[in-house]
């Protein structure tokens, strides 16, 4: 496909060129952003084990994804977690750039993890499990939340198969997002037209399927996360509030 893109193989060159290349637009046309808060029910197999809330909102001069998850009822006794994650990003010349990823658990400070991106210097500073490290950036980076931006761009530009650098557990791995097609899915008492993507990550057996609202390409209607033979974890949309 002919489009400007960021790719690691172009970057065996001096860092000044790296910074220049990193500023190239990733998307020919901007994916429009609109703030929303969506609530989800969380299922493991056939069990309803919790709830989650995903939001996209402007944050100072930036934008921020935020996901919080809560175990429900009896499951809260066994799952001593209140995990949350935030991904802050900017858009410069239509290019989506992550600024910071924060992952944590309100009940477990040891689970705190962060990654800060310095695009001018071409590096990411990671704090994970109390250890700090620097990771070199070679191309645009996505994570489990900003991946929705990539999916929206793929829908907008009809790209079917993209491999990108992906932040996972303090490292950058190759991640592949494949557009599978359209499907009608049941959300509440409605059938909604969804565009379906499959994500796989290098070095991981987890397969994630994202079902996006065809009329709102940034809004996941359903996210199915399956590791090996385990029964999948499923986030299913309950309600969405769009903000002006």
């Amino acid at each position, binding site marked *: 496909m002919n489009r400007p893109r960021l790719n690691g193989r172009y970057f065996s060159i001096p860092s000044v060129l790296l910074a220049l290349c990193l500023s190239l637009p990733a998307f020919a046309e901007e994916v429009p952003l609109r703030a929303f808060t969506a609530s989800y029910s969380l299922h493991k197999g056939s069990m309803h084990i919790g709830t989650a809330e995903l939001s996209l909102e402007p944050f100072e001069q930036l934008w921020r994804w935020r996901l919080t998850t809560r175990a429900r009822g009896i499951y809260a006794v066994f799952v001593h977690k209140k995990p949350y994650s935030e991904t802050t990003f900017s858009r410069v010349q239509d290019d989506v750039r992550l600024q910071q990823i924060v992952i944590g658990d309100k009940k477990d400070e040891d689970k705190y993890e962060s990654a800060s991106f310095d695009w001018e210097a071409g590096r990411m500073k990671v704090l994970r499990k109390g250890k700090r490290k620097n990771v070199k950036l070679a191309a645009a980076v996505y994570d489990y939340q900003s991946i929705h931006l990539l999916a929206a761009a793929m829908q907008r530009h009809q790209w079917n198969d993209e491999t990108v650098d992906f932040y996972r557990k303090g490292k950058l791995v190759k991640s592949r997002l494949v557009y*599978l097609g359209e*499907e*009608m899915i049941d959300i509440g008492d409605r059938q909604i*037209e969804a565009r379906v993507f499959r994500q796989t990550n290098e070095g991981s057996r987890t397969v994630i*399927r994202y079902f996006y609202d065809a009329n709102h390409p940034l809004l996941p209607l359903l996210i199915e996360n399956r590791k090996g033979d385990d029964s999948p974890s499923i986030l299913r949309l309950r309600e969405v509030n769009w903000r002006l």
Partner: protein
Amino acid sequence: MSDPLALAILISGSGSNLQAIIDAIESGRLNAEIKAVVCNNPQAYGLQRAAKHDLPTRVIDHRDYANREQYDTVLQQYLQSVAPDYIVLAGYMRILSPAFIDAFEHRILNIHPSLLPAYKGLDTHQRALQNGEPRHGVSIHVVTAKLDDGPILLQASYPIDAGDSVEDLQARGHDLEHQMYPQLLGWISEGKLRIDVDGRILYEQTPLERPLLFNP
């Protein structure tokens, strides 16, 4: 020789099934004429394949339309002007509206990467692997308003081996697909397989009670 079967082929991507049909026509194995190649994606490689063979192409980009009904109305009008005997879905990655399917009832064919009725919908290879299936396959069926649910005409299966990946299954399935569409369309063009206006399916003058099995 009877008149060639008039086909309209709908694609969204690389068009490898389109190529298999083109090759079968050009080699004389299939008595058919491709009246139109319609694509919703202007960047699809299948359009280049069609152009190389001087086939009439039409891009109807769904992003230019406010909703599915508007898009399908334009698609329907164009296809009615082409007047194909059959509309062949060959990697067309859009849901068709009930009104569109109704307009071409019993004349839309689809190829689906599973042994229908198992694994309707998307991502069939991944789902079959996850469920530890011993076999997977390919089905060609008549399209009805219900997804992947119309009468199954032709099926082929292949084994899933330990350590197979999605890509392995896709490659095995594609090999079969590229043989199955020309075979099935050949039977239709010869009159060996007939789909009546009321949807009744006859194979060698006998009602088809179960899918035909494809043996490569």
